[in-house]
């Protein structure tokens, strides 16, 4: 079964680079390439790809919109954001919107294929800075504000808070250890580490919604 991939990037050469890298494999194929947000949305609806590679800076809007749309209407579609530097600000916003991975623009063809494959098999890449940010975000809500509200812990438990194992993975990633190193340190496989990370990304999405909901409720409580 072939993985169907959609590439949305306004730079033609970069777009073509990604399409070529994907098409060079036997188990993947690029089903389309779009240069604008509108075109991307259209193709996303009509083609229903398995994986969406999307750049944030599109001429007619922000790629975040596309990520949100995919996360809401095509939950089976994995989204990778294409970033120049993998910097915290852009990547984190994409993860919150629903992306579960990111690609650097200068990645080699082999790297692109490898990352897509990992993502599709349930794993996600993570950088130390992102790991650190995630730790801060989850801890701030779980340990700080939530206990004040009786609804807080319930909401943050389970779906939107971190398990101890997930925390350990994030802590090690934040220290710059690679997946290959983290696995043995925790006595799990590299693949399990990547799936932990992907699960954390999903939780981040939920967590962000919970956070927003919680914040809204808090505001309403204060306003009342």
């Amino acid at each position: 079964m072939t993985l169907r991939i959609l590439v949305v990037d306004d730079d033609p050469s970069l777009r073509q680079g990604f399409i070529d890298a994907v098409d060079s494999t036997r188990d993947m194929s690029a089903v389309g390439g779009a240069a604008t947000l509108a075109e991307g949305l259209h193709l996303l609806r009509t083609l229903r790809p398995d994986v969406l590679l999307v750049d944030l800076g599109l001429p007619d809007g922000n790629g975040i919109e596309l990520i949100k749309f995919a996360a809401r209407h095509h939950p089976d579609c994995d989204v990778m954001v294409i970033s120049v530097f993998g910097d915290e600000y852009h990547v984190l916003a994409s993860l919150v919107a629903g992306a579960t991975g990111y690609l650097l623009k200068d990645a080699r063809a082999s790297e692109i294929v490898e990352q897509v494959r990992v993502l599709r098999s349930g794993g996600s890449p993570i950088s130390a800075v992102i790991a650190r940010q995630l730790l801060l975000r989850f801890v701030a809500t779980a340990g700080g504000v939530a206990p004040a509200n009786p609804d807080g812990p319930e909401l943050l438990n389970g779906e939107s808070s971190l398990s101890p194992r997930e925390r350990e993975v994030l802590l090690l990633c934040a220290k710059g250890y690679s997946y290959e190193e983290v696995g043995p340190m925790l006595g799990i496989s590299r693949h399990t580490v990547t799936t932990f990370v992907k699960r954390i990304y999903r939780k981040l999405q939920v967590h962000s919604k919970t956070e927003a909901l919680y914040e809204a409720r808090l505001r309403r409580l204060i306003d009342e």
Partner: protein
Amino acid sequence: MSSQRCQRGPQSAGRAVLARLLAVLLALALCGCMPDPQLSGARHFVRADQAVLALEGAIDADAPPPLAGDPRWRPVDLPDVVSRTVAVQGGSTAGRSIVWYRVTWTGSADATAALRGRPLGLYVPRAIGQPLRVWRVEGERWLPVHDNRPWAAEQWNRPLLAEVPGLAAPAEEVTLAVGMPFRNDRFRAMSSLWVGPMADLRIRADRRTALQLSMPQAATFAMVALGALSFAVWLRRRHERAYLYFALTSAAWAARNLHLFVNIPADPWRDWFWWMNAASISWMMLATYLYAFQFDARRYPRVERALVVLVIGGSLLTVPPWDYDVLLAQHAVNLLAALIVTLLLTKLAWRGGSRELRVIVAALWLCLIFATHDWLLVAMRITPETIYLLPYGSMLVILSFLHAAMWRFNGAIEQVEATNTVLAFKLMERQRELELNHARLRTVERAQTVLIERQRMMRDMHDGVGSTLIATLRAVERGDLQTDGLIDVLRSAIDDLRVTIDSLEPIAHDLTPLLASFRVRMSRRLEAAGLRLHWTMGDLPTLPWLDAPQALEVLRLLQEALANSIKHAGARSIAISAQGAGGGVLVQVLDDGAGFDTARPEAGRGLPNMRERARLLGGRLTIESSRGAGTAVRLWLPAQP
């Protein structure tokens, strides 16, 4: 006191109060003279029989009046005033005489019935002369009823009310005689007489006593209290003479009204007491005018001096033993002077004087009218039945003082309020200025920060990516560079840029994510060079001084260390570690490469560069290496700079 004028406020209220007081005073003055129709039974005698006898030989003041048929009884109108020396029949001008007034009261039938059992009496509103004697007819004889000698000193201003004992009821007719001894060379006056039930007469007598004595007493008390207050104020505010002059005015007034409170002293002080009583009018006048002059911005030292001379001179000229005519003349001169000064003050008030001055001038005019009235009373030019009005003048002066004080107080409060408003406004302005300055400073600061940051980035770009790209461009132009080489160069340029970006990430003074990012950035180059990386990261203390510029220095330093290991050492593996040590952080880069002689390092290793960066960071850099034994680069960074 301030002559500052203020347009708003209870000006009309002040006027209303003055007008009301004036009305009350006039009403009081009138009712003192007018009979009350509600009282019944008492008869008012404006005619009487009069007999004047020289007190010589056997006849003395204690002898009974002439008998009914005596030819010396002659009808006379009351009040009977004799203001000039008269020759008394059979007596010398130097001697004494006695004047008798005889009246007969007849009760009407019904009134008598109503009055049955109630005592009768005599009421004399005013008698000016020596102590009165009262007799009544009992059959064919005169019987003594009352001798006023114990109250001789106060007789001139205290109404006489005498009960006629044993004549309660059912008397239908009572004949009384009132005798008043006098010196032949002195004036005398007898008001009209009242005879009737004591109850009726007492009401009249009490009312007159209140008007002549009690109210002036109360006014004097109030004046003295205010004067004391004013004096206390003046002690603290010596430059405001109005307070002093008001205090002096009240003192003079108290001296003038002293006779209302004390028993007149006996000789030889009696004459001095009356001298003070008379002279105090002029003292009062002087102090009042000096007080009034304080309310005009202009000064009239000549007028003030003339007043002082006049008053002192008048007081000295009238020292005992004085003559009655001299006293009258003194009062007349005082009146004239008062009139002139009041006219002058009126002119001042009329032409742009302060509100206080106008009120004072109005009070002065009323005082002047009262004084004229009293002078006429003393001079026997008007009926002795009226009361002395000048004591009421003190009330007016009090009122004018209160008015002035009120305006003064009001003005002071308004001034304070205005000052506060101005201060608040100024404060607000200053605050706004400060805020503006602060904002301006912040803008400058921000611009400065941006400038410094830009310079830093420029330097970094210039030394790093910029020069790499330019060198690459030259090489490509010369055709020296093949595709693979080009890719390597561009990748390292991108890595450089990533390090720069990483240094700008918010790391909250924690070296950990910085080093972790660095590891990810470098891992590809290490892999490409076939190097194995051992990564060890402990728990690091935060470095409060670690911000973006310092972060970049740390990363560049490590980048150079790593580049040396890759380019020059030919190492197979490299170990990067970081841990807390010695109150700071120790970062180590160890390789198993060729090493070099630290005493003679080849050019191109960039060691001086690394040392310079370490120095800028306030850290310690040690580089250990020897040929064939690898290289150890250790960077220690303090927790506190």
